[in-house]
């Protein structure tokens, strides 16, 4: 590259891109300049003064501007009288940086001594003790003694829950804070939640939260990773273990299609009978997926795996009861029922199953002539398979010249890490176009906000096909790279298929497909919906899929609980076999219930929304059996041979599914150096996130990249009925099967509250706080009402999966205020 700058750091020459800071340049040659306030993912502030170094610059003659040379003909280096902060000083050609001198050592000793004047040194009881940047840097740089008096330390509150005492996720210890502002800068700059701030000045300075509920951010847990001391710690891990006692186990987040890489910290515990238990979840670095961040759902929402409500023994139906049984008996019974169904066997699989599970279920079903489908309210997988973002896509590299279109999705609630990365792309200069029926948080960064009426999602995208129809359509067409992110807000099953096709048409018309950083990105409701599509299990309405079924085999899906199918309807279609973690409403209607192992208890792989196939590994002992093994056991009894281990099943997938050709578990486990490097001795630099040693995963090629024919298809613009419509909106903290059992997060679960526009509310006579009755053709629910201006006229917004059962898509709705209320 032309704009490389060469400088010398402690005698070592290094060439780095122009604009790099000295501290980052030093990192590239493994020269550790200690920092507290600097973080490679945040803007530098130079607050802690720990990174002071001697900086020498090439001297120039003031009059002529010529480089001054010494007797030997070398450029003369001039040093400033004072030390400079390496974290705020960009590199210059010929610069000489000295970090290993007595002057620098003295400065660092003084800074450490000064920082410790108000630090309580209660490392023995601190959750950070053992992985604490302050502890490590004090041992490496501190003077060892202090001239300050221990008794004169500032005394502050040591136990401040940031939020209601029984709800706070993060605890603050005010004494331990060294005022580096990493947390306040992360919340305000990086995730744009202005909920943390500084209060008072000097030694009295304190971190405060002023949101309701306290520290109201979906990314709050990340501040505990980057806090260089134990000032911010999580409720989840509070006094859970000492860091050196923990064994890491790599995994993935099972909650949304982003596929964030994470690491379980496990420890053998007396209360678990000497078995390993998960003590906490930390991010695992993957710069192409989640960088070093995790949202709070991923970080704190893993507890469902250890819920006492988990199924552990197979159940079989005797009359109207389910009684405990043995695996052999239950499997034999299930196999007999499936065999009797013959070609009438229908498999309904959930999107939290791994690729291996889905493949095994499909293989068994199809060997009998049956069919398998995905239980998901969102269709439109085929266009994404063909025109999805190209292999090698990294939202973190989108910037100037690129465009991102987000349609019908509230990304912050549906896929928080994509929200963050799209936001950052917009801040780097990418043109962000946000089209939705209501304002969302992403609007703040959008260059173009497109507001359409509910039901006109497809028309809004179709409109962009007309050249010159709007400035944003033009900006999108002209962009060098463009990604179309689409969700399903305000869309029913058919509507989401139409929107996917409309987006595909737009990608084709503007030639944004078939290469990295170009194509479609679907915001699926589950972690592995994309994998199901790639493996040939298309999403289907359960009623349609199970029509004509002679036996239903349902894995990791709860169509009854979701209100898509009544238990009686399900049972009327022949025997029901369910593989589940919990005794869901569907499982209660089953003839045989087989307990499945949770993802933390087994290995497997997920295909993320970006179509990156990534592995997860077992961390704790299993309560049940992996779904693919249950399928293999049943398959064996039905005459279908399936391998026992996930890695072998994956090889089968690679052999028979073209998109997965050539992949295997070893390839998925490959790693490469990433910058900034985190983990290990870089604790003080990047935070406590784990380095990725277990695999970055590999992206699948889109159909277009593999040479599949890509042609636009006409899309029927759906007819929109007049009148008030109910629009279910996805919320992050819902009551899904895998989240409801994570008790820690229960206080944050979204209440079932219908939101109305003030005009609609006035017309209908609804006041905020009223209990209202929403009803449609064959349903009716009672919920509390809220009135807010953000809700567009003509719709009633209701959080999805919030404890009340409503139709999956938008539906005509009548609002009644029950007389009893007035």
């Amino acid at each position, binding site marked *: 590259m032309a704009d490389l700058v060469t400088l010398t750091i402690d005698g070592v020459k290094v060439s780095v891109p122009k604009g790099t800071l000295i501290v980052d340049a030093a990192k590239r040659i493994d020269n550790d300049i200690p920092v507290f306030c600097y973080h490679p993912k945040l803007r530098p502030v130079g607050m802690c003064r720990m990174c002071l170094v001697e900086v020498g610059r090439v001297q120039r003659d003031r009059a002529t501007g010529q480089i001054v040379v010494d007797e030997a003909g070398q450029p003369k280096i001039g040093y400033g009288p004072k030390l400079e902060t390496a974290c705020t000083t960009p590199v210059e050609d010929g610069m000489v940086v000295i970090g290993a001198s007595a002057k620098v050592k003295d400065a660092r000793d003084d800074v450490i001594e000064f920082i410790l004047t108000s630090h309580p*040194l*209660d490392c*023995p*009881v601190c959750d950070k*003790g053992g992985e604490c940047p302050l502890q490590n840097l004090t041992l490496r740089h501190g003077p060892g003694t202090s001239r300050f008096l*221990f*008794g004169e330390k500032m005394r502050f509150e*040591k*136990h401040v829950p940031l939020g209601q005492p029984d709800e706070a996720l993060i605890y603050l210890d005010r004494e331990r804070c060294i005022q580096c502002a990493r947390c306040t800068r992360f919340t305000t700059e990086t995730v744009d939640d202005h909920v943390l701030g500084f209060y008072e000045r000097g030694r009295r300075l304190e971190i405060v939260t002023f949101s309701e509920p306290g520290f109201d951010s979906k990314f709050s847990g990340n501040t505990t990773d980057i806090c260089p001391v134990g000032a911010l710690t999580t409720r989840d891990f*509070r*006094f*859970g*273990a*000492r860091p*050196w*006692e923990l064994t890491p186990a790599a995994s993935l987040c099972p909650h949304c299609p982003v596929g964030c890489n994470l690491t379980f910290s496990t420890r053998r*515990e*007396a*209360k678990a009978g000497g078995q390993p238990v998960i003590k906490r979840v930390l991010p695992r670095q993957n710069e192409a997926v989640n960088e070093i961040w995790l949202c709070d759902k991923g970080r704190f929402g893993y507890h469902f795996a250890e819920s006492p409500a988990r199924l552990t023994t197979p159940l079989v139906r005797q009359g109207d009861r389910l009684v405990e049984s043995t695996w052999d008996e239950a499997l034999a019974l299930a196999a007999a029922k499936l065999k009797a169904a013959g070609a009438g066997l229908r498999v309904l699989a959930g999107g939290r199953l791994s690729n291996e599970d889905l493949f095994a279920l499909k293989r068994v079903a199809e060997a009998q002539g049956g069919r398998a489908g995905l239980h998901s309210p969102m269709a439109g997988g085929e266009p994404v398979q063909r025109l999805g973002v190209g292999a090698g896509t990294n939202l973190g590299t989108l910037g100037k010249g690129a465009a991102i279109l987000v349609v019908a999705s509230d990304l912050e609630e549906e896929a928080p890490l994509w929200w963050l990365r799209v936001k950052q792309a917009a801040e780097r200069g990418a043109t962000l176009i946000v089209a939705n029926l209501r304002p969302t948080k992403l609007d703040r960064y959008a260059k173009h906000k497109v507001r359409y009426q509910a039901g006109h999602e497809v028309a809004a995208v179709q409109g962009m096909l007309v050249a010159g129809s709007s400035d944003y359509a033009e900006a999108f067409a002209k962009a060098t790279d463009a990604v179309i992110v689409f969700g399903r807000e305000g869309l029913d099953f058919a509507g989401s298929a139409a929107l996917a096709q409309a987006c595909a048409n737009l990608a084709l018309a503007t030639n944004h497909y078939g290469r990295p950083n170009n194509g479609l990105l679907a915001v699926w409701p589950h972690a592995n919906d994309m994998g199901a599509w790639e493996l040939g299990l298309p999403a289907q309405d359960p009623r349609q899929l199970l029509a004509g079924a002679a036996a239903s085999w349902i894995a990791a899906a709860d169509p009854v609980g979701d209100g898509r199918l009544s238990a009686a309807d399900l049972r009327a279609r022949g025997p029901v076999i369910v593989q589940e973690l919990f005794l869901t409403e569907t499982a209660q209607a089953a003839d045989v219930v087989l307990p499945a192992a949770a993802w933390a208890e087994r290995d497997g792989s997920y295909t993320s929304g970006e179509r990156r196939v990534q592995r997860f590994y077992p961390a704790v002992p299993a309560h049940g059996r992996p779904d693919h093994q249950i399928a293999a056991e049943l398959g064996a009894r039905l005459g279908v041979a399936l391998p026992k281990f996930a890695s072998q099943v994956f090889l089968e997938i690679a052999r028979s599914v073209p998109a997965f050709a050539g992949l295997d578990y070893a390839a998925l486990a490959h790693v490469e150096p990433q910058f900034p490097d985190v983990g290990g001795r870089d604790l003080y630099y990047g935070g406590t996130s784990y380095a990725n040693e277990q695999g970055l995963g590999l992206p699948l090629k889109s159909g277009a990249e593999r040479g599949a024919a890509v042609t636009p298809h006409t899309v029927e613009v759906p007819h929109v009925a007049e009148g008030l419509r109910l629009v279910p909106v996805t919320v992050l903290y819902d009551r899904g099967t895998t989240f409801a059992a994570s008790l820690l997060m229960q206080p944050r679960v979204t209440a079932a509250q219908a939101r109305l526009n003030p005009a609609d509310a006035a017309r209908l006579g609804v006041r905020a706080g009223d209990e209202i009755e929403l009803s449609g053709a064959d349903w009716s629910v009672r919920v509390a009402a809220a009135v807010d201006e953000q809700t567009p006229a003509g719709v009633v917004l209701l959080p999805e999966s919030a404890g009340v059962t409503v139709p999956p898509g938008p539906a005509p709705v009548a609002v009644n205020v029950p007389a009893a209320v007035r």
Partner: protein
Amino acid sequence: MFSEIIKGFVTTGKYAFEPRVTTQYPEARRPVAPRFKGRHELKRYDNGLEKCIGCALCAAACPADAIFVEASENTDEHRFSPGERYASTYEINLLRCIFCGFCEDACPTEAIVLESNYELAYYDRRSSIITKEQLLVAPPAGAASTPRAVEPGQFTRSVPEMKNPD
């Protein structure tokens, strides 16, 4: 030959009138040396609160991996030790312990002490794991035991301010 026999009787006779050196264990016991390293004890402060704060530094220092600690959070209604943290599980496997005393050295509150008890026999291997109840000493006379309710804001510091040894 006779001279040897007589010499033996003389020696025996001489010791018959010396003070006795054997003790009638277990009826009688000899005092142990001040620095003797016997079975561990978890000490209490004079007010009856436990010194152990569950920091697990003893477990980290233990070369034989004999100590296992699980910590929990104190509240003023249910207080075990000063400060925020106490040991909810504390186990030592005496079959693994080599009585090196590193745990004593590592303890920031002087809670664990290798005391004088050397009678460590048991009938099965499971009993070699001694629990917190067995390790914890009784509260001093007049002091209440733990857990107990205390005035809020009274015990906020986990680690007492200790003087350096002179």
